[in-house]
């Protein structure tokens, strides 16, 4: 048997083993998290929030191919929904689940409101307008003092609870976020596989040819913006509930760029890639904390290295959730 043949014979089984290994490590990490000190659980909570944001933004950037640099606006809409509806600010104290629904709806509406004016734009132009949109939302929040508290933000938010179970400790948020991330990931993945997901891909590849086969690109794009913004907004509401404080500082352009970077480095258009990208960009700065200002340099070098070595991302589009499942359960 030649070397190539023996390699071909070994490969399926070994890549299956790799898939199982990744799966087992993920389960072990999840099982171990509740026993870690609070500081680590907080880091993992923030990792999960970024994964959630990544899953949301990926619908627009990865699936539909529209570079949105203002995603943080939807995150802010969700966060301020919670802050205003569950705090002494307006003296409203609605239940957490209800606010999640309100935040999701407001997110979808803002998503469509952003979507309509940018429908005709692509590429650089779209990036600039969405970037402007993100900044506009932040600046409005910063200046409408009577409602949002301006730069001081809103403090003393209510403790969240679901059906009487209080969600306050980092570990509570860990379980909540885990469920929400898995749900959002499932919905995004199934959307990608649906006929709408195929239409998003067609728009990404050639918008004009997509129209030529009968796709109403306006509706398909608005659907992408709306679902993406809904997920971003839900992430914002959970973020606000976990911090119990919001201020405009959390919603700068830098956040949008960070989420885009996560997607690009992890693997654009692939949920598994987003997890990898978030793990690197969120966990590594924490690990490297002791190197102080050197860590930024280190992160920059790592990014350059990854982009050169794996230009399609750590986990490229071609190795999506479908493939992982096939490897695991061998269909």
């Amino acid at each position, binding site marked *: 048997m030649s070397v190539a043949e023996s390699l071909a014979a070994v490969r399926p089984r070994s890549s299956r083993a790799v898939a199982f290994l990744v799966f087992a490590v993920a389960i072990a990490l999840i099982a171990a998290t509740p026993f870690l000190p609070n500081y680590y659980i907080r880091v993992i909570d923030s990792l999960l929030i970024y994964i959630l944001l990544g899953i949301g933004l990926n619908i627009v950037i990865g699936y539909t191919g529209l570079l949105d640099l203002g995603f943080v606006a939807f995150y802010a809409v969700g966060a301020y929904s919670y802050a205003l509806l569950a705090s002494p600010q307006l003296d409203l104290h609605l239940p957490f689940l209800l606010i999640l629904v309100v935040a999701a709806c407001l997110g979808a509406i803002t998503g469509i409101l952003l979507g309509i004016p940018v429908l005709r734009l692509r590429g650089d132009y779209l990036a600039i307008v969405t970037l402007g949109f993100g900044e506009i939302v932040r600046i409005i929040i910063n200046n409408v003092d009577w409602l949002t508290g301006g730069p001081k933000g809103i403090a003393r938010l209510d403790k969240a609870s679901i059906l009487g179970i209080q969600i306050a400790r980092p570990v509570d948020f860990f379980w909540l976020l885990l469920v929400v991330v898995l749900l959002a990931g499932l*919905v995004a993945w*199934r*959307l990608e*596989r*649906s*006929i*709408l997901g*195929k*239409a998003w*891909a*067609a728009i*990404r*590849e*050639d918008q*004009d*040819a*997509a*129209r*030529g*086969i*009968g*796709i*109403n*690109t306006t509706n*398909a794009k608005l659907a992408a913006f709306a679902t993406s913004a809904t997920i971003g907004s839900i992430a914002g509401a959970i973020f606000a509930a976990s911090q119990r404080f919001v201020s405009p500082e959390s919603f700068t352009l830098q956040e949008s760029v960070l989420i885009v970077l996560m997607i690009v480095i992890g693997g654009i258009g692939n949920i598994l890639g987003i997890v990898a990208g978030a793990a690197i960009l969120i966990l590594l700065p924490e690990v490297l904390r002791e190197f102080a200002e050197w860590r930024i340099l280190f992160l920059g070098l790592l990014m350059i290295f990854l982009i050169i070595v794996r230009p399609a991302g750590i986990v490229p*589009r071609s190795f999506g959730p479908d493939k992982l499942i096939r490897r695991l359960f061998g269909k």
Partner: protein
Amino acid sequence: MTLVFNKLRKEYGQVVAIDDVTASFAPGLIHGVIGPNGAGKSTLINMTAGSYTVSAGSIMLDGKRLDKLKKYQIANSGVARTYQNIRLFDQMTALENLEVCFYPSDVGGTWKEVVWPPYASARRDRRREKCMEILRLFDLQGHADAEAGSLPYGRQRMLEIARALVCNPRLLLLDEPAAGLNHHETADLTAKLAAQRSPDRITIIVEHDMDLVMALCDNIIVMHHGKLLFQGTPAEVQASTDVQLAYLGTANDIDDIRAAAQDRRAQLGIRTRRRS
């Protein structure tokens, strides 16, 4: 019922690309549109498919006015097309390129597809069955899971025509389907296009390859300087002195025209190979 151009006109500023063309196209037939470069052949296709706006006149399909509709609405009225430069969804598989054409009929069930996996797989299987049928027709069944952009040029041409046919269009518009194909592939294409004939379908082919046009078309329209110069059967077109004088020069120049078409194909072939 037919496709009708009524005093159709296209102007770019001072330039008149299509000059009051009136013509009708009967179903069940394959119509060829020929003419020298710049005669307005592709413009006709682009206006019919909604890629270009119409300056004046109208386009009617089965009594329904097409030229006021948006491009996707035209497609949903049963109009499918291919492009002069192949435009596939490169990073999608060959199968997905066809599957996505069922968007207009299936998009309403998207949320059901998301929340109810058995429904999704039933829908997907039904779509894919129809797609595989067309892929087999074009000898592409072995490439169903290959990325469209990675296929060889000839296969990409076939896939683009397959994509246009998958939803059984009422009107099929082919813009230079043989461009860049070699002799063997052109003969293959001719056979496949002959096989897709259906009594309900209007097929319009813009083409420079006279062998293909003469072998395939029942009715030929000759365009010259944006005007309709002649309409008739292949035999009538070949016999027409008008066409010979205006388009072919003299009867003896036919070989030169063939050579020019050959050159053009060679050029296209080189260009596209460089691109991919």
